């Protein structure tokens, strides 16, 4: 187990800059999720930590040792790839034992390690099968088994669940999280799915365009997004972000709606953010016209038009309205987010 430090890491492919100086500090035993839209450089960063890509600038240290010039096999890491990368010509047992075989471990140790991992992952009955004879979830488990038999200092996962169907994804999500808590191994997990990030991480690192937008605990990011990108990226359904300005004793959106501001609000505010779940039905609220009602059972999502501004609310109550009806809603003033003209959060 080890800490991982990424300091001012840069990556250049040919003449294209992919990472522009990234800093991440990962504590021993922490579960860190790198999240961001596709193409933002998450995999590249992970592969640099693994040693599969060289480092164009900056420094990466694992367990206090700078590994810039250390080959992958000597970094004491294990990686799970998106499409599992199981060796097709080897059985599950051989797949799991491969790294130990290369390290010339004694046969009884190998067998014991494989058995132990198989037991943890529920693969006992499948040890003699070939990867093609396994389902997606089972392959995923074998890939994880291959990682845990090595007792690495760091686990690296690159979108390991994106090839699974929705239900299995939720199940494997909790399995991975549980396993990580049991083994307490430092883990870096890449995903583009913010729900995965929120549910699994101790620390989330939100990336965009080769830069880190914000890093912190999931709820910290949810409660206090540092900028418009994080505000829009974390949370589902996404936060309403309404451009406008402070005027007329409230916030006047560009679409013409007048929204209430919390006391002492910064007059520089250029964007008003409110999460759908922080809007309440209120008789003294702002009046809007219903555009769409989407009940999910546990809550009802309503798209409203206030002036020219569209805003989404998510309510515990069952909203009876139909498109065209009027509805009054009020934001929870303590949960309003204000952003300045530069897109950063205002204090």
């Amino acid at each position, binding site marked *: 187990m080890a800490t991982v430090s990424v300091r001012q890491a840069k990556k250049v492919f040919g003449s294209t800059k992919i990472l522009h100086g990234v800093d991440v500090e990962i504590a021993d035993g922490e579960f860190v999720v790198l999240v961001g839209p596709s193409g933002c450089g998450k995999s590249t960063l992970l592969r640099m930590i693994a040693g599969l890509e060289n480092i164009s600038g900056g420094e990466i240290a694992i367990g206090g040792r700078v590994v810039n010039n250390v080959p992958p096999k000597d970094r004491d890491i294990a990686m799970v790839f998106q499409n599992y990368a*199981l060796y097709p010509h080897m059985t599950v047992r051989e797949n799991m034992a491969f790294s130990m075989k*290369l390290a010339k471990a004694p046969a009884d140790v190998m067998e014991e390690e494989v058995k132990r991992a198989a037991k943890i992952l529920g693969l006992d009955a499948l040890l003699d099968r070939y990867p093609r004879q396994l389902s997606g979830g089972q392959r995923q488990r074998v890939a994880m088994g291959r990682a845990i038999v090595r007792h690495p200092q760091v686990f690296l996962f690159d979108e390991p669940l994106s090839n699974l169907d929705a239900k299995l994804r939720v199940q494997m999500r909790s399995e991975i999280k549980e396993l990580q808590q049991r083994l307490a191994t430092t883990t870096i997990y890449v995903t583009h799915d913010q729900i995965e990030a929120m549910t699994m991480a101790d620390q989330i690192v939100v990336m965009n365009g080769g830069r880190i937008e914000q890093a912190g605990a999931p709820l910290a990011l949810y409660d206090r997004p540092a900028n418009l990108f994080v505000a829009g990226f974390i949370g589902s359904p996404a936060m309403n972000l309404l451009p406008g300005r402070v005027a007329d004793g409230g916030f006047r959106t560009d679409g013409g709606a007048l929204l209430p501001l919390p006391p002492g609000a910064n007059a520089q505010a250029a964007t008003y953010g409110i999460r759908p779940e922080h809007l309440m039905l209120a008789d003294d609220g702002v009046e809007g016209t219903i555009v769409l009602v989407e009940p999910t059972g546990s809550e009802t999502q309503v798209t409203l038009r206030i002036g020219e501004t569209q805003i989404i609310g998510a309510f515990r109550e069952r909203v009876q309205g139909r498109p065209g009806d009027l509805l009054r809603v009020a934001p929870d003033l303590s949960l309003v987010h204000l952003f300045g003209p530069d897109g950063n959060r205002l204090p």
Partner: protein
Amino acid sequence: MTDAAAAPQSNTATAAPEMLSWDSKSRRVVMLYVPLACFLLILLFPFYWMTVTAFKPNAELYDYATHNPFWITSPTLDHIRHLLFNTSYPHWLWTTMLVSIAATFLSLLSSTLAAYAIQRLRFRGSQYVGLAIYLAYLVPPSILFIPLATMVVRLGLFDTPFALILTYPTFLVPFCTWLLIGYFKSIPYELEECALIDGASRLQILRQITLPLAIPGLISAGIFSFTLSWNEFIYALAFIQSSENKTVPVAILTELVTGDVYQWGALMAGSLLGSLPVAIFYSFFVDYYVSSLTGAVKE
């Protein structure tokens, strides 16, 4: 000797009906079996002709007026006996076998390493090396044999099997390299990255991951090399002089044609026996061969 190719090709073709769905039987006959039958007929006829001639007594062979040219009335083993006991045919066969196997082995070895380096190591300028290897393939042997002859003589290899074993790779290596580059490309690179993290060296990756997955590709490259070596003519004609050391294709033409007399029976018997090893070789590996040309690594 191209006849040997008929066997695997017909197999490829008959696999088709399972994949296409044909609505009516008559349509199936017209669209599939009739063209297929014509195809087979054309491909197999030379083989048939060769077989028939090899077992025909001379009396029938040279007298079409009284004998049906497409049939044998009294088959004989005379030609084969003549070939095996009155000529050096067994020795020619042995030389051809030796040369083909050695050249194939040599070419496969160097092509595997070359293809792996070009496709996976991506060293600086690797694509130019790939291109250069391909260009070498485009130089026709009928030109290349002249400079090669000089080299063969200077190295003291003239009239030895080594002259052929070392020159055949000039056309086998480019061919196999390109075939294997394509095959390696179909093996997910992630597998190798994963092995790299698991602690394997490049050579271990090649031996334990890439090559086992590339077996179908290696087999088809091997079959191609073996067949091309077996049938090769120009180099074998130019670099070998003594009757003893000749390969089958050259020997039957130079040794079995005395003056302007064609010993048709012996010629055909020689061709028939000479094409059997290739046909047998093909038949063992036909499944791999087809799969490597039509599909790549699955899961």
